[in-house]
């Protein structure tokens, strides 16, 4: 793999890790969703840079576009959930969502 791939991999990993940290630590439901968006960016960067490194940029674009479409559906569903949760609890705090024990 070309050396530039590792550069992109570094940033992609940083993004995914930042997103995971956000998922672990943040309490605001919408913030949690922003963290998920950041993870998505990291993954699409990883996908595209892998394709770029292998001179397979067209396939990589197809993958990234599909991934983005999936992300849109996911975000729409999640935000619908958040709005419904807000209607129930009047709060965006994940600690108010602790009824179930897991």
């Amino acid at each position, binding site marked *: 793999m070309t050396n530039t791939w590792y550069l992109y991999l570094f940033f992609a990993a940083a993004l995914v890790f930042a997103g995971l940290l956000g998922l672990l630590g943040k309490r605001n439901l919408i913030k949690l969703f922003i963290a998920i968006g*950041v993870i998505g960016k990291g993954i699409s960067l990883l996908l595209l840079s892998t394709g770029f490194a292998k001179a397979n940029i067209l396939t990589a674009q197809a993958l990234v576009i599909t991934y983005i479409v999936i992300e849109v*559906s996911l975000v729409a569903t999640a935000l619908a959930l958040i709005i419904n949760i*807000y209607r129930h609890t009047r709060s965006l705090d994940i600690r108010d969502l602790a009824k179930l024990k897991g």
Partner: protein
Amino acid sequence: MILQTALLIGLVIFSVLAIALKDLLKSAISLAVSSLLLGIIFFRMNAPYAGVFEISVVAGLITVLFILTIALTKSGDEVRESKLVNWVFPLVFVAFLVIDALVMKGLLGKVPALASGPEAGTFGEVLWRGRTLDLVGQIAVILAGVFAVLALFRKRDKHD
């Protein structure tokens, strides 16, 4: 390459800002800016289609959805984030960056890869003929999202 690296650093900075900022609206805008930067990065990697998609869909559509949600959930009391988290996580993140850099340096050239041949066809052909099943999947996931939103926003008269 330098410009690309600068863009990548900007991408990470704005993404971290999006997670860390207190004000939700500023968070959403920061996320949009990072999407914009990612789109430009894609352009510079000879991936114009991905770049356009990233900018119009993620920076555009998803940001609009976020702002819509923020507007619909404006409450009187803000959610207070944990103070401990605000201190510890940046440190953990920086530590990770160091580990990340070391790991990447160590991995340089160690990931074996088959040499791949040149790609055949145009982007249209690759997408429509080469990855047709993905398109069926895209339609399916869009249907799933649409029905999900319809189900979650339906008028509730009585339920279990």
